């Protein structure tokens, strides 16, 4: 202790004339650029997946319907819900912003808000307008800061060089570890379920993969889709187009995870997991066509105890999955296992039985309590351009059927395919394999009316076709199949197409005859539209039935104007396996209700 200790504190007096250090206008101080203030939500970008709600450890977020506000509505890919935040609970941690699947949610740097009514502090950002909605600054998820893995686990596949000379299956399937990593990426929002035509419980079966509980997963699959093994390989996976993860990353490989479950459970266990059919009801149902729609109907009805007879013109069941999809995408044994499982429920199959020739519709009507028509789209359309009646102009569906029926086709040295859909890719790739096997080289040109961005085929199919040396020319309109004096097919002449899609997304191609090309080909294969062979119904039934723009008119349950006849699958819904499955379920429910009503009438 010294004199200095007494004098030194007087140093404080030096601040006597110092300017105040406090902020002059504390009421209008702007927070820092990345300040975490009140939320902003771009509600057009938001899909209402509720991942923000899921991660909020305070339970501050509720998902509320806001249909009608600023064009938000419940539709595939958008729940129509938007997050409401309770600022009595929010702790400003911004995990909701970090995890937001679309990047719609952010925080402004507004932090002052005075209100007498506490309930006001509970609002839906973007819907309940606030003055900070347009604030430029605030917390946005920084680049590279992700709380969920945005990239898909790559699927092991055969390389183009390994697969081009055989029909061996290309996709290898996930290992358990890969599948778990992929399943881990799913945020379990369930937005996809509405998009799946048959509404498979997608988040639940993905959770089963995550937990390694494959038997539970298989049960979930088969309760909603008896074509799960097949769909696990070739489903058009519309669900993945609405996957929340697709907005800022790759969608979850939902199809591959389904496939993974079916591969992890030994096939011998399937039957026990799916369970026994109910006791026989004494009712009998005839199904025409053993494709996905017909066989799904058969599966459902058989499980309910009804006697089901399936009439199939071909020697095998599976419909287009069996006769339309190449083996490298869908091996026979997968289809066979699926069919065996359905048949094991007590379904009786009548192969090589053609309606109209071997048995009539009238006969079916007489012998059964209900009849289902599910004959698919087996007739290929023709462009009918000049020369298209040449013997070497084929229809893709016919060729695919012949290949899958085991016929040894002699592949031409060169070939042109007309069409830009999956069938076009299927035939191009199948023929490429035959060319490689027989000639050691591939010469296939695929021409499509549409430009690349509007191709109807799955982008993966396009990519793999190119890998397999198929030359793809977009925006080409077929004009003529050129034939020389000796009646040999020379190839296809096309004009350039100016693709114009109108405001409704409808397409009216227009041609530019100044841009003409001739594509050399010993064969031309038309892979355009397909239609149903409804001629088998006969004139009388055709006249009786109501029709809707070329398709049999059915009510929402798939029932036609004839009370005993239902129709399902591609022929009423257009071509798609999983839609056909959904249709099969719907038809089976309707028939079951009808048969139950019959029982009640009898009892009464």
């Amino acid at each position, binding site marked *: 202790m010294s004199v200095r200790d007494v004098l030194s504190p007087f140093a404080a007096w030096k601040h006597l004339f110092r300017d105040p250090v406090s902020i002059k206008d504390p009421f209008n101080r702007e927070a820092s650029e990345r300040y975490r203030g009140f939320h902003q939500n771009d509600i057009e970008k938001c899909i209402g997946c509720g991942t923000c709600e899921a991660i909020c450890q305070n339970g501050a977020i509720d998902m509320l319907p806001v249909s009608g506000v600023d064009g938000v509505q419940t539709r595939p890919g958008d729940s129509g819900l938007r997050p409401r935040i309770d600022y009595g609970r929010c702790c400003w941690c911004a995990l909701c912003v970090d995890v937001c699947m679309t990047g719609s949610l952010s925080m402004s740097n507004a932090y002052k808000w005075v209100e007498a009514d506490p309930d006001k502090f509970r609002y839906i950002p973007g819907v309940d307008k606030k003055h900070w909605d347009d604030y430029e600054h605030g917390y946005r998820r920084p680049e590279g800061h992700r709380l969920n893995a945005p990239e898909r686990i790559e699927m092991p596949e055969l390389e183009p060089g390994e697969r081009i000379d055989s029909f061996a299956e290309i996709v290898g399937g996930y290992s358990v570890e890969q599948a778990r990593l992929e399943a881990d990426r799913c945020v379990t929002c*369930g937005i996809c379920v509405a998009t799946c035509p048959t509404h498979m419980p997608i988040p639940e079966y993905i959770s089963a993969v995550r937990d390694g509980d494959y038997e539970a997963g298989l049960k979930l699959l088969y309760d909603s889709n008896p074509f799960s093994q097949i769909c696990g390989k070739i489903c058009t996976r519309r669900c993945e187009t609405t996957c929340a993860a697709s907005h800022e990353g790759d969608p979850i490989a939902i199809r591959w995870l389904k496939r993974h479950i079916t591969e992890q459970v030994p096939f011998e266990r399937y039957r026990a997991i799916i369970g026994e059919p109910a006791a026989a009801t004494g009712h009998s149902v005839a199904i025409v066509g053993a494709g996905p729609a017909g066989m799904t109907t058969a599966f459902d009805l058989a499980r309910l105890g009804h006697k089901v007879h399936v009439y199939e013109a071909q020697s095998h069941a599976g419909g287009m999955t069996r006769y339309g999809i190449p083996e490298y995408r869908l091996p026979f044994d997968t289809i066979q296992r699926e069919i065996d499982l359905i048949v094991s429920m007590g379904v009786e199959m009548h192969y090589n039985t053609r309606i109209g020739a071997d048995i009539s519709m009238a006969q079916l009507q007489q012998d059964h309590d209900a009849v289902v028509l599910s004959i698919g789209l087996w007739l290929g359309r023709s462009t009918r351009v000049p020369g298209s009646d040449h013997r070497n102009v084929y229809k893709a569906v016919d060729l695919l059927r012949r290949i899958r029926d085991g016929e040894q086709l002699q592949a031409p040295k060169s070939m042109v395919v007309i069409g830009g859909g999956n069938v076009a890719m299927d035939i191009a790739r199948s023929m490429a394999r035959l060319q490689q096997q027989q000639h050691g080289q591939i010469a296939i040109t695929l021409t499509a009316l549409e430009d690349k961005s509007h191709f109807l085929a799955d982008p993966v199919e396009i990519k793999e076709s190119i890998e397999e040396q198929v030359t793809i020319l977009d925006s080409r309109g077929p004009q003529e199949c050129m034939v020389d004096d000796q009646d040999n097919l020379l190839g296809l002449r096309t004009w350039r197409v100016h693709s114009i899609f109108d405001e409704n997304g409808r397409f009216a191609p227009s041609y530019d005859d100044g841009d003409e090309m001739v594509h050399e080909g010993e064969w031309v294969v038309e892979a355009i539209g397909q239609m149903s062979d409804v001629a088998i119904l006969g004139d009388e039934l055709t006249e009786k039935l109501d029709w809707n723009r070329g398709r049999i008119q059915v009510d929402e349950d798939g029932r036609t104007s004839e009370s005993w006849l239902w129709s399902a699958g591609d022929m009423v819904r257009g071509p798609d396996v999983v839609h056909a499955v959904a249709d099969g379920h719907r038809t089976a429910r309707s028939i079951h209700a009808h048969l139950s009503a019959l029982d009640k009438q009898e009892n009464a």
Partner: protein
Amino acid sequence: MMQSLYDRLKDRFNLGEFTGRRADLAFVTVSREQLRPLLLHLRDLEGFTHLVLLTAVDWIEDDTFQLTYLLNDRARARDIGVRLMLPRDDTQMDSIHDLWPTAATYQRELREMFGIDFPDSPRVNEDFILEGWVDIPPYRREFDTLRFARETYPERPGRETHDPATYMKQQLYPDGEDNG
């Protein structure tokens, strides 16, 4: 470093499972009889003079409490966690307040939060954090904080939420069917 320590002490104190975590951190399981001799040895002969913490883990599925005595040897920059497994139905343990006076505070908390008793520990029965608590010791796994909160505090009215998948089903395909 930790492995060699374990190898030296293993037989002498009849040590159980050894878990090397880092070069400077390991955990080892010890029996109740050997706990005090081991702690004394570690403190007085191995340099582990600092009791970092004493706490419990409830392995309710194994009917066991794990007591963790974490000791630090500053000179050699290393830590050892001594695990002691205590049956959940016999929750009495010997106090170590005479080895580290500060242990009394930890033991008092353990009695209150886990219901693990240390009979000789000073003031062990005095309330520590929870005055007037009548429920089961709250850090035991079977104490459900969410249920407690729901029963104790009223929910603020006006809350409702919707599961996206369920809501979409109601809106788009209420009968389980899609007509699109």
